[in-house]
């Protein structure tokens, strides 16, 4: 056994008399060459488990119980010097945020060579050679050029590759990957994940993978450890757990994920929140959120039930016999009905947002970043149109341009046949109450120094200043109730709320003016899956109740599948394919759409990743012809100089198809024509 964790507890002193029991008695084993996934919502102690293994917990932390054996050595028995010899050498770690885990002041070559010289005592000349090898191995193009780059010159996916290269420098026996792809696009995620499993096959290292994404778990893991409230809820191999989920938490976690198939029911949600680590009571920690809760659950924690082989679960339901435990509890609430109209609420015609690039003392405009490049789009009343694409493709800019939040937008945007691009000053201010926006980051979108009442009520102050204080607070309470919050929170501040609650507050702020059109800019991508399901269901309910029209911006295709009526795929400022949601998912025509769909880790079958090559090019200098051709699998397979290849590099493909379903691709064009 390479790594064996026994009854590990990691507690923190969190203020006077308060102890946060972040990790509270967990055990697991990890064999050489295998991958163990630690799965759970945020706040369940996954990351602290990893830090405990590295012995890098914060100063106020301590271990009341527990042993960690690595290659038969008790890690808690080592002195700091010996531990330092292990870190980066035998145990390496990659972090969630590639943007901040590389030192911006050093060239990546220097950062790569550091562990080599530190642990392997490699000489300077050899270490550079080895660094080049490593960069090549993790698939960085032109390693000779890249090795002298600074981190800011690399894209997010490249940085994460460099991080992986760094952690691989000393050929570690154990790699701890803490949400390695959460900050990356699906296409890049597929690249990084396939790189990790390739490297594992080559070197035989073990991977401790921390994630909340069940799709990644399905793709990568051999064993699973479902954590809840600092404890193990269920433990077993991938097949054992995926075929036979015994713990209600595992079941609910799994069923709250939007699937790529069509579904007529609302998403299953886990009510409530993960309890704070300072407030664990007696009994099962999941009891308050569990649908199968029994009296005994609140009294004491269940013993560990062994099912088959290694498969263990900690749940009282097992005492009642395995049959009742296996009962899948799914909501069957249907998706609320909506009135779909064909008249467009929003008509976008030739919208262009070109940000000027200024240089020199006098800020001369030398070039333009074509963030949104000649987009036309209809958004029918009461419908949801989804914008999908990798980061940097201009989705957010398009959303903000429609709302007149970007001064550089040009073109025409009709709202109920009124061109709102021409509105200025007071008229625009008055018009803003018809359209609102909900942002991605629930922590950045609420002013931290204002009370909830003032945040939600601010729109009323602007647009209905004559409202009496009574009427105003009544309206605020009503809208808060509508998003599922109690009106007792009026006097509180945003930092007292969790991400999901904050997102509800942000939705309330957008709804208080009773708008007809909402831009939802990745409203759930910062949330846990269970909370994401709550917010998505809420958005669906609100839409049917108020006949809202949504522009739903997302990079998560399963979420889009659940929410959208029409999907528009964006690449480098242009829509490359647009189709009704069924049609797009069943029959993707553009190679980019196909690649996106293939990059999503599947929940059912394990499939080999076919990742897209390369990153999104800079919109400052898009590739000639079809913007996608340098990454397009069809173009790359095509012979140089063929008619299609010439077309792809020569001219941008025209839209093929009608107004509501079209594709821009030289290759897909003939088939699109046939369908017409």
């Amino acid at each position, binding site marked *: 056994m390479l790594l064996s964790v026994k009854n590990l507890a990691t507690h923190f002193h969190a*203020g006077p008399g308060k102890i946060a029991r972040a990790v509270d008695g967990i055990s697991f084993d990890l064999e050489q060459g295998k991958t163990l996934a630690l799965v759970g919502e945020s706040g369940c102690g996954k990351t602290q488990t990893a830090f405990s293994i590295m012995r890098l917990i914060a100063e106020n932390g301590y271990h009341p119980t527990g042993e960690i054996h690595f290659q038969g050595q008790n890690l808690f028995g080592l002195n700091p010097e010996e531990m330092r010899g292990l870190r980066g050498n035998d145990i390496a770690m990659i972090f969630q945020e590639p943007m901040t885990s590389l030192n911006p002041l050093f060239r990546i070559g220097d950062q790569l060579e550091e562990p080599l010289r530190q642990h392997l005592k490699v000489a300077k000349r050899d270490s550079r050679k080895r660094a080049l090898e490593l960069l090549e191995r993790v698939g960085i193009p032109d390693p000779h050029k890249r090795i002298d780059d600074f981190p800011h010159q690399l894209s997010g996916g490249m940085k994460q590759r460099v991080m992986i290269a760094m952690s691989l420098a000393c050929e570690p026996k154990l790699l701890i990957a803490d949400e390695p792809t959460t900050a990356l696009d699906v296409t890049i995620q597929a690249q990084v994940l396939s790189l990790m499993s390739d490297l594992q096959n080559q070197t035989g290292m073990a991977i401790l993978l921390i994630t909340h994404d069940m799709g990644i778990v399905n793709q990568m893991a051999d064993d699973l450890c479902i954590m809840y409230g600092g404890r193990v809820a269920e433990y077993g191999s991938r097949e054992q757990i995926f075929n036979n989920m015994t713990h209600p938490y595992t079941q609910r976690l799994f069923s709250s994920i939007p699937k790529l198939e069509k579904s007529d029911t609302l998403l299953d949600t886990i009510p409530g929140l993960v309890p704070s680590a300072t407030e664990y009571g007696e009994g099962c920690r999941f009891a308050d959120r569990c649908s199968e809760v029994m009296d005994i659950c609140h009294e004491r924690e269940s013993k560990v039930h062994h099912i088959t082989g290694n498969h263990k679960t900690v749940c009282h339901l097992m005492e009642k016999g395995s049959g009742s435990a296996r009962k899948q509890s799914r909501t069957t609430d249907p998706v609320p009905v909506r009135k779909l109209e064909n008249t467009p609420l929003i008509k976008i015609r030739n919208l262009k947002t070109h940000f000027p690039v200024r240089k020199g003392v006098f*800020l001369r405009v030398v070039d333009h970043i074509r963030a949104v490049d000649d987009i036309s789009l209809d958004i029918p009343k009461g419908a949801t149109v989804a914008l999908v694409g990798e980061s940097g493709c201009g989705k957010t800019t398009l959303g*903000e341009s429609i*709302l007149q*939040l970007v001064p550089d937008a040009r073109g025409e945007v009709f709202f109920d046949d009124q061109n709102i691009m021409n509105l200025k000053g007071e008229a*625009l*201010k*008055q018009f*803003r*109450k018809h*359209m*609102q*926006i909900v*942002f*991605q*980051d629930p922590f*950045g*979108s*609420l*002013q*931290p*120094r*204002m009370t909830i009442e003032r945040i939600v009520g*601010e*729109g009323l102050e*602007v*647009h209905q200043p004559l409202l009496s204080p009574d009427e105003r607070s009544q309206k605020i309470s009503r809208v808060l109730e509508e998003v599922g919050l109690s009106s007792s929170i009026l006097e509180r*501040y945003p*930092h*007292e709320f969790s991400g999901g609650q904050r997102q509800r507050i*942000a939705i309330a*702020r*957008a709804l208080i*003016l009773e708008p007809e059109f909402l831009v939802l800019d990745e409203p759930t991508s910062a949330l846990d899956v269970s909370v994401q399901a709550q917010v998505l269901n809420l958005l669906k309910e609100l839409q049917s109740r108020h006949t809202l029209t949504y522009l739903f911006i997302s990079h998560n295709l399963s979420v889009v599948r659940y929410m959208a009526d029409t999907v528009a795929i964006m690449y480098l400022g242009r829509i490359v394919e647009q189709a009704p949601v069924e049609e797009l998912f069943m029959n993707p025509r553009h190679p980019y759409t196909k690649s996106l769909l293939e990059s999503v880790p599947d929940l059912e079958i394990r499939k080999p990743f076919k990742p897209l090559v390369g990153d999104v090019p800079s919109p400052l200098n898009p590739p000639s012809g079809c913007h996608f051709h340098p990454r397009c699998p069809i173009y790359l397979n095509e012979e140089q100089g063929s008619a299609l290849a010439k077309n792809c590099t020569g001219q941008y493909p025209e839209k093929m198809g009608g107004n509501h379903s079209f594709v821009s691709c030289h290759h897909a064009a003939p088939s699109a024509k046939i369908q017409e």
Partner: protein
Amino acid sequence: MLKLDKELKVKIDVYKKDKRAYYSFLILAFLFLATLPAELVCNVRPLVIVVGGKAYFPIFFTYSEKDFGSTLPSEPDYKSARFQRILNGVSAAPSTPTEEKNSFSLQLDDFEEEGLKTAFSIGLDDFDDSEDAVDPPAPAAEVALSLSPRDYWILWPPVRYDYKYIPTESKTGNVVLAAPYRTPARNGEGFIESSWEDGHYLGTDDRGRDVFARLFYGFRISMLFGASLAITGTLIGCLIGGTQGFLGGWVDLVGQRLTEIWGSIPRLYILIILSSFLVPSALLLFLILNLTAWMGIAAYIRAEFLKVRNFEFVKAAKGLGVSNFTIMRRHILPNALTPVVTFFPFEVTAGILALVSLDYLNLGVPSPAPSMGELLAQGKNNLQALWILLPTFASLTLTITLLTFVGEGIRNAFDPRKTL
């Protein structure tokens, strides 16, 4: 801001835990509050005089000698022997020697020029020597004109001098540069007693003014000056930096270049030019220092505004149609205040030091005003007079050190990594 929000409370708790910063703040606050009513602590006028059952409050109201039964319409010198005699019912009018003295004391009050000083101080010395010989006959001559003696009762402040009073009489016979300890007389015969005899607890400066009173008033004006300079500097800085940061683009560019040009003009240079054709006063000095005091804080505020204006809650407010000014005031400013709060004590320090150095160079507030810088200059010119240099140096160092400790404490409390 009636309600302290939680975050601020935590910060105050963190600050209180920092013992050094907390006690520094308490000491500084005590010193400042103690020196605020300096007129009641160091003054040549008594707090209360009760003459024949009638109460007078000379600090708050100005009385003339007539009010006390004499003949002159001018304000009496309450510390003089002449005033004693008036109260005792002995008229001060006709006697020649006292007349002479009286005219002296009047001159004294007006007296400011450097040149006359030395000549005058010799005169005083001479006069002190002859006092014993002259004084006794005078009352004898006045007895004839005397009024009936009255009951009187005087309550003096703890220190019977203010910052500009130059005494006319001395028990030790030494008015100018009197040491607070026994010193050998200048002519080598005998000793001059400590100035404690006259109530000068820290001696007198080279014009005979009480050093303690000048320090006391000087500390007050330094603190007030430093604090108000920091306040106005911060306000102007917020306005300029905020506008630049929020609007960005051309406004920011032009503003930055102008700021750089403005900042490269030496402050002292502007001061020397301006003081050559404007009459220097504390207010003028304050205005001039304000021309540059905002620059540091403006740079920080600008950077914060540039950062915060891209936050999503600002976009959300724009999406709601909130006006630019309201966004700046309500959404951005509260989130950009950390550098302001953190730098405030250091700005006060900078203000105090600016005033002290200008006073030291004789470019500061004009002469009779109490000032630490002027005391430092005197100490430098009279190195033998340690009682001027050492207390001034000590109180200046103490003030600056305490302010720095307070500033460090605030900075640590606002350090986001130290949230409890």
